């Protein structure tokens, strides 16, 4: 059965919750600290790294402050404040997506050719303020530099010992999380500097920015890493981070954790379209459970070089423009005019859910020469309309039923959902209303909530007769709004306590074989 590409859609909308960077927030009062989700743009060119941190802080604005370890002393021109919209743009571009195919009827040809795309963006608001304080010297803490960049006051600290740094921060009115000293120590001993950010209230009011904008830092260092450990000092439980990486040669991967591709290009039931957000978050959590909690997951990888005309396939939103790429710190492209550019560029999107136990080291990256493309794409297959007097229809009908059963099995294995609730799906092609998927936080929703669910209450049908004979006018046109699936990044956070014991089921095969060979070896040794 030939299929025609129809819809490419779906977008991820993230960042509804509080955002944090890998550094930690320090609060001045008893403000509640949020440090659950974050987004980072990494740009690597030779030994030069540019890191842009989406730092959203919810809580009392007076309490905002952030500490980030950096390998070198940053100059004024190494620090920029950028527009938050680039995060939303990259997110929309690289998120998981659905593709819809429509079967061709066995004896007839219908062509659908409109392509529906969707894109959703969101803005968040958070404000923060704080005033600078003077440094003190008896803490063995040196303030190497002090800058005001737009609405931020920035100090670069160099410390000799973690005690001194902790006392300095405490005495200057910062509330340091418990256990911060142990976390600070390795950075001090590695000769790293500390980048302390506060909000300059006057500047913020003068600029009129309600939103706390992302900070971008650049430095030359062989260290290609993200210091996530500091962020775990006050992070409770799991934190979620999405990393957008730009490089010249190819994919970026982690060298001290496994980088695992998400399952992709699977055929899933058509009703997934209505619940794509829940579908993907369930899939993500189920995949983490299967693959292990100590991995980094690849969600998107694409060659964005100027000469590559296909910058996405399908495109849930427009591919990044030159201005956005340049804003994120890519400085090696040549722009011709407007938004075009030439030069090598590769884009990688990584997703990591981390906590203290499963991620004892910081994330260390390397740029590989891998230019293979990857996307989290899931496929919907819509049945064809019934055709009169078609001898092949019965075969097609059986094929469809088999296919849909397979789709349900796929759904079960991808998401861990109990698909028995969808048992009518393989046999009803028109008017089927899927019940709500199970919600992992609130338990099972047993009753379908769609008002039209009466349509599924069916009498048994004989499959040799076409069950889905239907007037063309009854086919609903595809609404753009149907394809928007807002997913909050906070949905990815696994609320329940992660069991420290990991799934060991993935290597029994190797274990058995290794034991057998060792046995053989030992028997031989004993004999001789």
């Amino acid at each position, binding site marked *: 059965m030939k299929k025609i590409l129809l819809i490419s859609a779906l977008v991820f909308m993230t960042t509804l919750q509080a955002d944090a960077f890998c550094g930690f927030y320090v609060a001045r009062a008893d403000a509640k600290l949020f440090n659950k989700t974050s987004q980072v743009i990494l740009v690597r060119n030779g030994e030069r790294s540019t890191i842009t941190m989406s730092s959203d802080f919810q809580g009392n604005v007076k309490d905002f402050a952030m500490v980030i370890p950096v390998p070198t002393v940053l100059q004024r021109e190494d620090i920029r404040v950028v527009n938050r919209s680039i995060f939303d743009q990259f997110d929309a571009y690289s998120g998981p997506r659905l593709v819809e195919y429509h079967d061709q009827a066995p004896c007839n040809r219908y062509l659908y050719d409109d392509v529906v795309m969707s894109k959703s963006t969101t803005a968040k608001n958070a404000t923060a303020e704080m005033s600078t304080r003077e440094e003190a010297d008896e803490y063995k803490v040196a303030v190497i530099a002090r800058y005001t960049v737009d609405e931020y006051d920035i100090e670069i600290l160099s410390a000799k010992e973690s005690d001194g740094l902790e006392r300095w921060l405490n005495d200057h009115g910062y509330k340091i999380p418990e256990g911060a000293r142990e976390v600070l120590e390795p950075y001090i001993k590695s000769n790293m500097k500390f980048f302390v950010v506060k909000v300059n209230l006057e500047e913020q009011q003068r600029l009129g920015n309600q939103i706390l904008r992302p900070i971008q830092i650049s430095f030359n260092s062989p260290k290609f890493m993200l210091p996530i450990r500091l962020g775990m000092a006050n992070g409770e439980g799991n934190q979620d981070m999405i990393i957008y990486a730009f490089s010249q040669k190819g994919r970026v991967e982690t060298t001290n954790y496994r980088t695992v591709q998400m399952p992709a290009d699977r055929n899933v039931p058509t009703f997934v379209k209505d619940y794509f957000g829940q579908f993907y978050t369930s899939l993500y959590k189920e995949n983490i459970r299967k693959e292990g909690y100590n991995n980094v997951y690849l969600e998107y990888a694409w060659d964005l070089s100027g000469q590559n005309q296909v910058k996405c396939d399908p495109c849930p939103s427009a591919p990044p423009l030159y201005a956005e790429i340049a804003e994120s710190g890519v400085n090696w492209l040549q722009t011709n005019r407007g938004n075009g550019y030439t030069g090598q560029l590769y884009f990688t999107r990584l997703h990591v859910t981390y906590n203290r136990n499963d991620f004892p080291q910081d994330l*260390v990256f390397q740029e590989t020469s891998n230019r293979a493309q990857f996307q989290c794409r899931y496929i919907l297959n819509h049945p064809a309309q019934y055709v009169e007097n078609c001898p092949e229809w019965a075969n097609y009908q059986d094929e469809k039923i088999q296919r849909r059963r397979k789709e349900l099995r796929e759904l079960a294995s991808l998401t861990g959902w109990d698909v028995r609730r969808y048992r009518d799906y393989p046999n009803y092609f028109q008017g089927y209303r899927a019940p709500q998927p199970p919600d992992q936080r609130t338990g099972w929703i047993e009753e379908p909530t769609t008002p039209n669910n009466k349509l599924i209450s069916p009498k048994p049908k004989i499959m040799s007769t076409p069950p889905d004979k239907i007037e063309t006018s009854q086919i609903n046109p595809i609404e753009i709004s149907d394809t928007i699936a807002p997913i909050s990044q906070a949905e990815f956070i696994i609320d329940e306590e992660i069991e420290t014991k990991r799934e060991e089921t993935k290597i029994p095969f190797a274990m058995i074989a290794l034991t057998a060979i060792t046995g053989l070896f030992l028997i031989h040794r004993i004999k001789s």
Partner: protein
Amino acid sequence: MYTYLRTGLRAALQSFPKDARHYQISFLLIFLFTGIFSLKWPIDPTQIFLTFFIALVVQTFGIIFLKLPISSLKSAFISSLSLCLLFRCDQYIIIALAALITIASKFVFRAQGKHFFNPANIGICATILLTGQGWISPGQWGSDGLWLFVVGILGFLVVTKANRMELAISFLVGYGVAQIIRMYFYQGWPADALTHLFTNGALLLFTFFMVTDPASTPTHKTVRIIWALAVGLLAFYLQAYKWVNGSPIWALFILSPLTPLLDYLFKGEKFQWTKPEQSSSNSSQSLATIIHP
């Protein structure tokens, strides 16, 4: 028919423990299967096939023209497996080149009657240096504690069979002690960061299956120990101060050319995979007599 099968199987089982390479091949095969099916490495089967094909063809040329024993195909098999495990590339031509360099290096870089580069090691490093393509993926193994146990203990058995355990130990001492001193005692990292480092599958695979290669390491025992210690220290330096990924592999590559010099200065007993009285030609003869009495 059945009798032939049974005698053949028995002969195979009897000759299996006589050559440490058999164990090595078995282990590496298991690692490769684990990587593909359990750890989901993105390798396509064509890459594996291509690696083996090129390596075995080049080795066959060596057998024909350089009068090498047929059993040297086992070594080529091991080198191909190591390449599949350690070297990553998305282009077939580069993979073919790596396989070619791997085996050809054994015939080209020779001194005192033996090759001094570990074949897979030079195959990987030279390809990356020459083409800028391909990469080593130290993170692909993950860091589950299981690997420490399984690979460590079983690798131990394999290399003791080949009498090169001192290489693994002194490499681990050089690399590990330096890392522990720096990370744990000086920098104050928590202990589980160290565990994470040492349970990396790539490090363990290197320790027990690459640096212990008896054919390309110095022949004199004391020299060998010092040499492996140096490899460990260099690997530590490259990783800790130069942020080189897969540093043990690069350290071995850099220090391998020292082997002929050390062999020249300090004579030792040349290693042979099979003991003279059980040489592979003999065993294949005996296999033939069992099958066709």
